[in-house]
């Protein structure tokens, strides 16, 4: 196409037999060559995709990077709901972190019992092979975006039970883990520190 079309171009002669067959091809418009302000010259069927593209490109470049992403990132990192699941010793300290002295709810960390409503799987204890597939199921039941914390030595690498025949030596063999917390068991403030480090990780995320 040599020049920008000022009017609707007539169908090319070669296309006439096809038009008689009721299957007229749309006139081809090189949209890259059309200036934005000449949009009313296009037909209505082409207006919608053009406008959509213009809007999305505007949003993508300006709003998404500067507004939408930071806002949702802020929301996501400030309201991490862990799954209410106690595995072993660390579960007691996990519970203590929600007690009166440490009060994890200060940071918006509220345990939920249903994996569908959780963002965070805190593996607080020894994982055995018998419970491994249930752990994976729970992790998969959580909707995206989701994170996992391996709390304590057992979840990190088997801990004192790593030589046992029934223990998974490290939960990262089963699910992707974002933050590891050392300790046997970690103290509640240690666990909260892990959660805050995860928040930092989410903040620095670029995707």
């Amino acid at each position: 196409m040599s020049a920008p079309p000022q009017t609707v171009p007539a169908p090319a002669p070669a296309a006439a037999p096809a038009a008689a067959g009721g299957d007229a091809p749309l006139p081809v418009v090189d949209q890259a060559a059309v200036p934005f302000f000449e949009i009313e010259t296009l037909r209505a069927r082409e207006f919608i995709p053009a406008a959509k593209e213009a809007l999305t490109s505007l949003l993508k470049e300006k709003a998404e990077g500067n507004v939408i992403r930071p806002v949702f990132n802020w929301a996501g990192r400030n309201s991490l709901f862990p799954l209410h699941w106690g595995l072993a010793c660390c579960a007691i300290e996990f519970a203590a972190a929600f007690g009166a002295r440490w009060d994890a709810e200060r940071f918006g960390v509220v345990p939920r019992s249903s994996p569908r409503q959780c963002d965070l799987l805190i593996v607080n204890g020894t994982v055995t092979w018998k419970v491994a597939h249930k752990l994976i199921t729970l992790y998969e039941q959580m909707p995206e975006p989701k994170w996992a914390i391996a709390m304590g030595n057992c979840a990190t690498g088997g801990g004192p039970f790593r030589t046992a025949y029934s223990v998974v030596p490290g939960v990262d063999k089963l699910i992707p883990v974002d933050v590891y917390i050392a300790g046997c068991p970690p103290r509640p403030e240690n666990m909260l520190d892990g959660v805050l480090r995860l928040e930092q990780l989410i903040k620095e995320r670029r995707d």
Partner: protein
Amino acid sequence: MAPMTLFSVADAIAAALLGLLGRLLPAGAAHAVTAPDVVLGLATVVFAAILLAASMLNTILLIWYERKLLGRFMDRRGAMHVGFAGLLQNFADGLKLFRKDTVRPREADSLGFWASPTAYMITSLLIFGVLPISTGWNDGSLPLTLLLALVIFSFAPLFIFLGAWASNNKYSLIGGMRSAAQMIAYEVPILLAVVAVVVLSGSFDLTTIVNEQRNYWFWAPLFLALIVFVAGMLAEMERIPFDLPEAEAELVEGWNTEYGGMLFAFFMLADYLRALVGSILVVLLFLGGWTWPSYVPSALTSFPLAGIVWFMVKTYLVFGLFVWVRAALPRVRTDQLLRLGWMRMVPLALLSIVLAAVVVAARCLPVLGCIPSIGG
């Protein structure tokens, strides 16, 4: 001068907006734009938007209020670090849930699964259209607002049960069945308690009911009805002594076990919307709405929007009572709950109707007229 209602405010805003638009357009188009029908249509939209914004904002504030209050009851501090004193915590929760993936279990029924939270949310919001918050909130052109509010309020078990059934989860199903049984059982005492109020005030219109309370609030003569109504509302709102449908200990999350993301946020918000409606109804029916006792110095009552402020203070105090109950009481069992509803609450409500009738009769007899009559 006609009382300024919320709708007249919306009308004025719509007219102003359209007038502005009309000035930009050619004359013929401006005439079309400022036609009364168009103004009325835009006014309705503006009205709905104001209501939506106000109710949602209040609900989110209510959740924050509950979290802080519960924290204090429990010797801790509640949300603190997101925003000033955790005020932005609920916004963060909401935005996060908005962004989250919404998973529908494979075996779940698609239509029911999506429709029920939406319908639950919509019906809960709809009630705010008929609740007067202050004098002249609506102008009395709708005479049966109380009835309408209660009817919309009682739609909920239908949608809860629909969602629970559609989830295809055993916990959800049991929770949904409990919810339906509980709400139906407590509809009756609530309505009977409301009948007592209606007998005393002689009207189904909430504005009239509040205006009838200018001289004395209804909680004094109708104390029994107040107890029945509050207990019934606790059951309808599914708050803690009666929160069996979402009993965390036995049914994981109750009927919203399978819901996550935005649909769960809808359920959660609608729950608190209903809690707000419940508190507002208690204030309207028994605590004198936007009126204040006569001994309150006029400095406290004469500032602009005093009615709304007083109303919200009362509402939040009533909701604080609900939170207190939540912090202090354990959960009852299904059969105990139903027995309480049918065997205790219904007779009490009936008794309160009789009491209301006695009060009305006493008002008619000048000899026994110890209670000041209404309207001189």
